[in-house]
């Protein structure tokens, strides 16, 4: 019984570490996630908004799938205690107030997931104008989080 408990605790500790990692890992993972996100949003922006003549349905679907995957990946688990300071790939710009604004942050994440899922659905229809409109809604959720908890350069 005691052994089982120890094993369970040990496993629990290992799993938590593997999921979240140490502070630097969390910062690098989330920075990488946003970088990958940026690659995909840039494609959608270019093909659906700036140069609709280059619209490629398959590429936009792939990009929208990636955006939705990032949104649904549980990004907030990469914002553990102490992750407002760290070098990461480059110094993190997370405001310390992040930890006091959990309600707002969770609400923004929920909106981000909802709009990204909708973008995925819309992309499947292959209409550039619809994609552009929905892409704007996703972008607005990015901004709401930047405005709230991201340090301005």
């Amino acid at each position, binding site marked *: 019984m005691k052994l089982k408990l120890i094993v369970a605790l040990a496993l629990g500790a290992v799993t938590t570490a593997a999921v979240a990692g140490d502070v630097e890992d969390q910062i690098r993972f989330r920075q990488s996630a946003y970088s990958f996100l940026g690659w995909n*949003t840039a494609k959608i922006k270019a093909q659906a908004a700036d140069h609709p003549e280059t619209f490629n349905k398959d590429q936009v679907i792939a990009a929208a799938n990636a955006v939705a995957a990032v949104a649904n990946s549980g990004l907030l688990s990469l914002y553990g205690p102490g992750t407002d300071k760290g070098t990461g790939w*480059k110094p993190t710009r997370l405001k310390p107030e992040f930890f006091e604004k959990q309600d707002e942050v969770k609400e923004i994440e929920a909106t981000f997931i909802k709009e990204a899922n909708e973008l995925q659905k819309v992309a499947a229809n292959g209409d550039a104008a619809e994609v552009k409109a929905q*892409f704007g809604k996703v*972008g*607005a959720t990015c*901004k709401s989080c*930047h405005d709230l908890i991201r340090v*301005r350069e």
Partner: protein
Amino acid sequence: MKVEVHIWDWPLRLFHWLLVVAVVGAYATGKLGGNLTDWHARFGSLILGLLVFRLIWGFIGTTHARFANFFPTFSRLVEYVKGEWQGVGHNPAGAIAIIALLAALSFLAVTGLFANDDIAFEGPLFHSIDKELSDKLSGWHIYAVNILLGLVAVHVSAIVLYQRLKKTNLVGAMLTGKKQLPKSLAPSPIKPVGPFRFVITLLIAVTVVWSVWSGGFVNYLAPLASFQRATAHPKT
């Protein structure tokens, strides 16, 4: 005995009210984000063009539009503080506010050209500088908004105070171009503005905005910038 005198020429008034529309539009679209960011860029371009127009008009426009005629020099400020200043255009205190407003807007318009939002916006000159510098300018752009809001608040409350305390209708003057002035000041009305100067000034303003967006010198830098991006290790 008061007389009505023509003070503000029509290009100056048009500039002023278009600027009001553009600033309100840029502020609202900047706050809302999303696809309205495209409109933020359009309002910003309008502001840039208006500022170029105003700068030139400040040298070749009619009397009271010229910087030389209202620039808040030390002697004018001393006169004003003593209550001895006599004039019909911008008074020295108002002139400080106007120059500060124009400076803040110029800073916003220029930093905006190089800005990015790390979402889906890159200013037309973004690719001519490093991403890191662009990030800094983008941060300053947003800080400067607060300075602009402060200056707008001073500007608007001064107008309200003139209305309440001195019964001077400055808004009406900026709409009609005419001010009610004591006959003792006996200012001569401004000469009507000729279309030639207006057209030249407008052309220069439009050319500046157009060249910023169409590439101009950035076109020469673009291959270099994309080469740097392709070869550089991604930083984030």
